């Protein structure tokens, strides 16, 4: 290639990436910088003023009586979701991996909530979980008096977690299925010849072989769990007694219901830092994963 041709090529390259690059600067970098800046400001929307407030908004995190409840709800939601989601996803993947006849039908069924509109899915469950709703009606037919799922202290969180697990478990199931199918048949056969039973094979062969996928799905699931919002808005509004008031829901309340943009920004920065740590963790794992494969 001649020099001018190479130059023209570079020019084409820049032209190709310019729309995305400009968008990235305007809609990611600038707002990211701005939200950090706002988190050190006391923003009064009504008066239209914004004054430097030092670390006040971050200090508020420690004075705010709701903040510990939010931290607790977020932690419970994330841990509960990950444990339940991964356990169910792996179980479903193991079942599908038996390759019984009709497996594709079941795969479709388990995956289908993933493509259902999130809010529609949540609305249906809101309907089903009402005190006089479908779940309790079904329980009643077998003589069980069900609780008021979405208003009860422990059951509200449980309900939100289960609804979310059912919605998205299909995605992790597919990832686990791919991992299971990636285990070389020779290893499975060898363990069979060694006389390992199904449970032993699961513990000593399958689980270690798919551990990279387990870690990866765990991190992806936590990152997604941290952003849960619509479900809370539809199902519980953070209640009862803030037991389901997770970080993003609280953030929305502070920023867009209370119009406290400074404090809201501080909460947004906290969210960003947590996701940042998780993502870096994921990338490190991925490197190890690639190494493991080679």
């Amino acid at each position, binding site marked *: 290639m001649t020099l001018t041709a190479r130059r023209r*090529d*570079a020019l*084409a*390259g*820049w032209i*190709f*990436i310019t729309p*995305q*690059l*400009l*968008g*990235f600067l*305007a*809609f*990611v*970098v600038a*707002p*990211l910088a*701005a939200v950090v800046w*706002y988190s050190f400001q006391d923003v009064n929307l009504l008066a239209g003023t914004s004054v430097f407030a030092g670390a006040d908004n971050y200090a508020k995190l420690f004075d705010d009586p709701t903040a510990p409840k939010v931290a607790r709800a977020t932690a419970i939601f994330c841990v509960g979701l990950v444990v339940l989601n991964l356990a169910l996803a792996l179980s*479903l993947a193991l*079942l599908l991996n038996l390759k*019984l006849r009709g497996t594709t039908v*079941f795969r*479709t*069924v*388990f995956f*289908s909530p993933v*493509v*259902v*509109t*999130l*809010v*529609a899915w949540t*609305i*249906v469950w809101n*309907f*089903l979980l009402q005190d*006089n*709703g*479908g779940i309790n*009606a079904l329980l*009643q037919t077998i003589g069980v008096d069900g609780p008021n799922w979405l208003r009860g202290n422990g059951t509200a969180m449980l309900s939100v977690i289960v609804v979310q697990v*059912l919605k998205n478990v299909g995605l*992790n199931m*597919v*990832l686990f299925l791919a991992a299971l199918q990636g285990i070389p048949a020779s290893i499975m056969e060898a363990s069979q010849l060694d006389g390992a039973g199904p449970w032993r094979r699961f513990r000593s062969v399958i689980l270690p072989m798919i551990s990279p996928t387990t870690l*990866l799905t765990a991190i*992806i699931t936590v990152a997604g769990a*941290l*952003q849960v*919002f*619509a479900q809370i808005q539809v199902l519980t509004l953070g209640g009862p007694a803030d037991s389901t008031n997770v970080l993003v829901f609280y953030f929305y309340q502070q*920023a867009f219901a209370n119009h406290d943009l400074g404090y809201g920004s501080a909460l*947004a920065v906290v*969210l*960003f830092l947590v*996701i*940042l740590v998780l*993502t870096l963790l994921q990338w490190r794992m991925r490197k190890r994963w690639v190494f493991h494969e080679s």
Partner: protein
Amino acid sequence: MSRRAKIACYVVMVVLAVPFVFPTWWMITASLLPANEVLAYPPKLFPASPQWENYKTAFTDFPLAQQYFNSLYIAVLVTLGTMFFSSLAGYAFARIRFRGEKVFGLILIGLMVPSEVTIIPLFRLVDDLGLTNTHWPLIVVPIFGAPSVLATFVMRQFFITIPGELEEAGRLDGLSRFGLYRRVALPIAKPALAAVAIFTFLNTWNFFLEPLVYLTDKSMFTLPVALTQYVDVYGGHLWNVQLAAATTTVVPVLVVFIIAQRQFVEGLAQSGLKG
């Protein structure tokens, strides 16, 4: 595997399938029940006389048709825009040797910026431009902002695998860079484009926080926010009408999913994995 074990596995799968199928089933059933039977005991699992009026009410008493159109045209525009701009940028990052390649690592930061983090400054920007209660922020920000980064990443990873000889042949035919992108690279990138199209469409179709923040008029709402508005003037829940509206947003997507399952599963697995 023994016959008995097989049967046991089937039983387990059928039982597990219930909470996945049942909600959609009951959504459709309840959407066809009269208001006084929606929460009746014993539960009606099949509508004796389907009340199609619920669907009519959903469209006549609420601007559902308008909201449906809003969601559809926004999702289509965002999907097409993302497919074009992300494949263009992804192509450059993968195939052109220039200093801009380094920008790619920078742009990946977008993968770890959830929309909640940037929405306060973006809201103020949109407000300053006088564009609140318009669809502009719902279209422009996703095409060029953080949501498009994943699409660019997926496209780049695909384009990197194209053998150089293919482009060499095109170059000898006198194709420009854009020609190489358009006539050589893009036609073989269909699987990657399909994946991008599917996850972009579904993400946009599901947007909830953004329309909630940017929009105020019901006639401007997109479906997810619109679906939460089904209450009568006293604040009472119009369950059957709400579920009818919900059904109209779910069934078309489910039908497309069942037809194009493999593409959906692969596309969404990729978005889950981030590449």
